[in-house]
């Protein structure tokens, strides 16, 4: 069991680190100063959750790998994040919609994880659930403002839906490792989040005057390490300094 639990924790940790990293790319370049503060806030929450998850995965694994070994010394084929979180920031509409899709999933997921059989995970969930509620609120407000703002912003928002919706199905799929951890009562079942996620998203879409998209070709593969081309560049940048000085302490 512990081996599959480690894998399932890494999937979650990678989701959080990769999305946190993407948000951090905005820092200093946001459309307004308030967002230069809000985006790093969310990035910090996500990176903080990733650190807790990596540390815990490393301790269960028991091979002496810590958070930085797991974050900095695995390559793109070993990263297990879903494809949604690695998508490039695009414009502000895409960044906010990506956040809403992800947070809309994680909110019921963390909620359910508070009933996990695993005490450490319950602790991580209890902290994350408060943070993710703010992420939903913040992202939803922007999706509504942009969807129901100007003609131009509505066009950006509609493009964001077209760009990103195809990556949402993967959120509800459990890898074999995750499925085993779910069956053991360690993690919530991903498929069960669909109702809550869709209710959140549909309510925001209605207020934003956005059309709920028709069935598209769902994209998946992240949990097997089959990513888009962007992740390799993200990791190359993120890991370059750490890898250039093997064994150094920072």
């Amino acid at each position, binding site marked *: 069991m512990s081996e599959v639990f480690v894998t399932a924790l890494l999937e979650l940790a990678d989701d959080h680190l990769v999305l946190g990293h993407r948000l951090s790319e905005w*820092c200093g370049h946001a459309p307004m100063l308030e967002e230069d503060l809000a985006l790093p806030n969310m990035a910090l929450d996500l990176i903080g959750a*990733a650190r807790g998850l*990596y540390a815990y995965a490393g301790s269960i694994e028991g091979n002496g790998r810590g958070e930085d070994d797991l974050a900095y010394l695995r390559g793109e084929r070993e990263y297990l994040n879903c494809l949604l979180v690695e998508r490039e920031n695009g414009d502000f509409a895409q960044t906010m919609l990506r956040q809403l899709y992800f947070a809309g999933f994680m909110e019921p997921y963390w909620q359910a994880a508070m009933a996990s059989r695993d005490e450490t995970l319950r602790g991580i969930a209890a902290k994350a659930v408060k943070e993710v509620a703010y992420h939903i609120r913040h992202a939803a407000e922007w999706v509504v403002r942009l969807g129901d703002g100007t003609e*131009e*912003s509505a066009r950006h928002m509609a493009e964001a839906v077209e760009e990103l919706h195809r990556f949402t199905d993967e959120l509800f799929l459990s890898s074999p490792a995750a499925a085993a951890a779910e069956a053991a009562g360690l993690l919530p079942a991903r498929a069960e989040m669909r109702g809550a996620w869709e209710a959140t998203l549909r309510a925001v879409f209605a207020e934003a005057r956005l059309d709920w998209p028709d069935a598209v070709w769902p994209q998946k593969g992240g949990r097997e390490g089959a990513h888009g081309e962007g992740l390799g560049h993200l990791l190359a940048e993120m890991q370059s300094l750490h890898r250039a000085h093997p064994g*150094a302490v920072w």
Partner: protein
Amino acid sequence: MYSQGLIGADGRTKEDAAFLAAFQARIDAEEKIEPKDAMPEGYRRTLIRQIGQHAHSEIVGMLPEGNWITRAPSLRRKAALLAKVQDEGGHGLYLYSAAETLGVSREEMTEELLSGKAKYSSIFNYPTLSWADIGIVGWLVDGAAIMNQIPLCRCSYGPYARAMIRVCKEESFHQRQGYEIVMTLARGTEAQKAMAQDALNRWWWPSIMMFGPHDSESAHSEQSMAWKIKRFSNDALRQKFIDATVPQAEFLGLTVPDPDMVWDEGLNDGKGGYRHGPIDWDEFWRVVKGGGVMNRDRIKARKKAWDEGAWVREAARAHAAKRAARKMAAE
């Protein structure tokens, strides 16, 4: 961060002598001037310029450090740097708000920054070339900023003084965090030590230039002193910074790149201090006037964020207007 002692008060004013004398009496009594109080036009203009320049420095200052967020060598350092850069944005926000109490909008100030009319601290026109720069900038640049800013916590203008109290607390945290980064490098591998020394070599002189020209060259700072916007001279603050920093460098086993630096018993009224070698003022003025390697890039980056964000800000305004209209129609 802070402007660099370049702002002299603009003494031009049309108020009569009695008004000016009454105002000066309030200042001399250490009363705080508040937004609704009558004040000389020159006082208001000087503050708008200084607070605006200070706010712009915080915002532009996010760029050189932001340059390493995506490459920070550990998750702990990544989170700390992200939080630090976010703090600088927060400082910008308080300062713009303080300037707004004087009747200028954040939008106007931003336009002035982007057009080149308003200045920001020249230190940010230097590039961050290695991870050690993140430590050195925290230690020296935030450290120099604190020297400049602590006296501003007692500035005669209330909203500025209050903003500075909050800012100073965070700056001193940044300074300690920066020093701790450098200490970790100085005690690390040979490559890390070399990285730290190289960063100190590049940032030392620009940091001590942050205090601005020598007092003998510094125009109109007397009026600023009289109005208690400024309380110590550029040279006095620079000396204080050097005296605090040189022993810190020695403790780390790093060398301050000033071969002429000597301990001089006669400095600081006989208490002794470090006498520094000649400062390259040509370099200082070249960078202040736009000739630094990063001047154009910094403004370009700010302009890009502003221009590309225009449709977002526009949409937020349009949406708020629609909401208000719907609410009115419903009532």
